[in-house]
């Protein structure tokens, strides 16, 4: 499969589609650039995984390492807390997105508007539509899909990736390599 066609091929993107983040360094650069990042973690991170590990395990460690506030959507809150992450907010993804389109929204932690929103693990179609809403409604935001399924409506998206490649890219970008070796 093409790495940058929508993971569900019928869900074609818009007139502009997300550049794919192929290397950890590119994602790490986005992380460095972020002044007020937010990481949205959806319920499919509890499902996606391999070799006894789940995506949520890695993303919890990533959030901890990069000290990014986390928005837990779906029912990921308890799973995150069990991994030592206290979400800044537990909220429905749609409700959160509706606040993010407001450039004056003070952020999930009240510390100021977010500039980059990383999203991972919503149901594909839900993430697709939500990112479309942000692309059109929140031009002030950079959105980055960290799901292992290419999301054309994000500002940047990981390509379609199998578990080992996804794991390697996330671990590399967040500097988790040593810890996971």
């Amino acid at each position: 499969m093409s790495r940058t066609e929508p993971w569900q091929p019928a869900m074609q993107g818009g007139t502009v589609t997300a550049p794919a983040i192929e290397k950890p360094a590119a994602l790490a650069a986005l992380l460095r650039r972020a002044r007020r990042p937010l990481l949205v973690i959806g319920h499919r991170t509890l499902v996606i995984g391999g070799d006894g590990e789940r995506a949520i395990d890695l993303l919890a460690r990533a959030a901890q390492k990069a000290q990014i506030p986390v928005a837990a959507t779906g029912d990921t809150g308890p799973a995150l807390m069990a991994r030592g992450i206290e979400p800044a907010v537990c909220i429905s993804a749609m409700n959160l997105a509706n606040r993010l389109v407001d450039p004056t929204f003070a952020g999930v932690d009240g510390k100021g508007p977010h500039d980059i929103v990383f999203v991972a693990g919503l149901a594909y179609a839900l993430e697709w539509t939500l990112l479309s809403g942000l692309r059109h409604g929140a031009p002030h935001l950079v959105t980055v899909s960290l799901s292992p399924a290419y999301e054309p409506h994000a500002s940047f998206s990981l390509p379609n990736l199998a578990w080992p490649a996804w794991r390697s890219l996330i671990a590399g970008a967040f500097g988790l390599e040593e810890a996971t070796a």
Partner: protein
Amino acid sequence: MKGIDIHIGEIASPLGRVRELRVGIGRVGSGTWDEPVGPTPCPSPTALRDWDRRLLARYRPFYLPLCDLCCLCTYGKCDLSGGKRGACGITLAAQQSRVVLLAACIGAATHASHARELVGHLIGRCGRQFPLDPGGLAVDLRMPIVELVCGLRPETLADLEAVLEYCEGEIVHLLAATHTGQEADPIDFESKVLHAGMIDHVALEVADVAQVSALDFPKADPEAPLVDLGMGAIDREKPVVLVVGHNVPPAVAILDYLAASGLEGTVEVTGICCTAIDMTRRSPSAKIVGPISWQLRYIRSGIPDLVVVDEQCVRADIFDEAASAGIPVIATSAKNCMGLPDRTNEPADVLVEALATGAVNGMLVLDPEKVGEVAVRAAVLRRPIRQAGIDLDIAALASACSGCGRCVRACPTEADLPDAVRAAGRGETEALGAMLASCVGCGRCEEVCPQGIEVHRLMAAACDECEVFAVRTGRGAIQDVEIREVGGPIVLGEIPGIVAFVGCANYPDGGREVAEMVTEFAKRRFVVCTSGCSAMAAAMHRDEEGLTPYERFSGRFEAGGVVNVGSCVANAHIAGAAIKIASIFAKRRLRGNYVEVADYVYNRVGAVGVAWGAMSQKAAAIAAGFWRLGIPVVVGPHGAKYRRMLLGRQDCDEDWMVRDRRTDEEVYVGPVPEHLFIAAETKEEAMALIAKLAMRPNDTSRGRSIKLSHYIDLYRRCYGRMPDDLHRFVRTKADLPVMQKDELLPLLERNGWTERPIPDPTLLPEEAFQ
């Protein structure tokens, strides 16, 4: 004066013979109804615009474009992204709301057309003066939606024609507004969406009251019979007819023909989708196979000897699928002719022979009574030559899987099909068979498989479906006395809410989730309503004692009841119940008095709609009808593909002010209900949302404390901690659940909470009240 209605059965004249001549003069009148007509009888698309704008100021549209382009005229395609306007000047937001309006118009037109055909058929069957009777002595307020919207009180089938004329006119106006160069303001489009939804509800009520009255369905009966659901319910030894769709006259004709010809009990009449529910309302001996998503698996099973399709939600490839299984098809709707030759006017004997001998695979027959006879006779003749379901070599077929993953990428539920198919290829079919429970039956996995593996067919073959579930058939309206009993507790909040599980079967993880939510809220003493495919899904779940929710809970409209109102068109009774609370309990005038009653429902009746698998344009229209009444709707994750949400901002205090009728002051009431339309990601999230959205400004402290206890409990279950927005919902300390006061007060104080009054809430100025 009811006007003049002349009926001539047959008359011979020099000009020829005339049969069934009917002449009506005058329109539906008020009879003895002395209630004054309110301000908006039969409102135009702009008559309720001010009310809509009040709602839309709180619940601003959040657009989720499926496409950046507009392709509707030859200026296009126009790129509307990045703030660009199209060649006609339209914006992306307006284009999205325009598409939403188109969907709502399609839905409303479908229900209005359904009602029109049904009323016409029933007038032919029963006569124009046949009385409307949806509930016998138990229902005095027969058509609350029609009375509220139209200011009319229909008494006969013929009276419904005037109501439908109004609906049809409004739908034409609304559709016209989507033409290039007409409406361009998103909020005006959204107002028209709400209008389309309201019209849709009128049409729903017309259709269901007509069929309940004329076809002797259960009349507001909490004890409507429990009927069989599931493939295991079918006696496969008998001839089997399958009916698919929504408009019940052909199915009724089949049942009537069986009864009239003494064949009752010798032929299995089975159904999929709403027709299935409605035919069990006619005869409990009919069997519900399952929801819309079961078409492929049932037809491919080879069990039916004949398929009859009417309208709505019928698969476009049903004829091809049936032909592959050697099953002939009778199409019966002018809206779904399927390319088949029209043989309506040929003798029944000829049609039976053509179908029974296999001379043809299908035909169009537009006379329901003829369909009844032909379907039964042909099925009986075809039974001996039924092709046994093909015994598939699952392992051999599945072993062709290359693991490319295209099936999972095409699957709406993102099911991990490749692993299961490859396991089946090794002879381990259990995982593949288990996936059928969450399959939406779309068949896209087969369309994309480069190896040509019929994944859905293998899945069905790997799952031995022989279960039988009990579902209470549609009871129709809610009795006036039930409303009197629950009206007070609902308005005061002491019954924590009405939750209606409605709509189609495009579930994110199977119908099991609907059944679990129904059970959860019934146990919590909400009034739970079901309809359509969701009513079926709710039945496919047993508790530890082996009971389905319909066996476990009462069918009364009461706290802890599980009330199946019926098919899609019976959704009218759910909206009708909310309106009846305003009328029967609160004595508000209904007649043409939409805004006052909607304001009442919005501020006081804690009702929430849940369309967990909503798929269709009809579902969009039904939802829009609830929105205009101020009733929020939660959809599953696929519902985001309706392109826009209607969301409140709980963090914007200024959005949540009402006028206190006692003091005429503006008062903050908190975000109740917080949203009008929202897609939830998971079942757990949906349940926390439902509990929250059931709160209303009018809740008493006792009621609010009950509602808060449910919200806190379901929120903690989903999110693992206390809600962070409690301070927005607590007005006084008395609102706090008693057992949690000590735990909650410090949380409130941390958020700077102070006590505030509980008003007599309204969004309207005083002069709006009748």
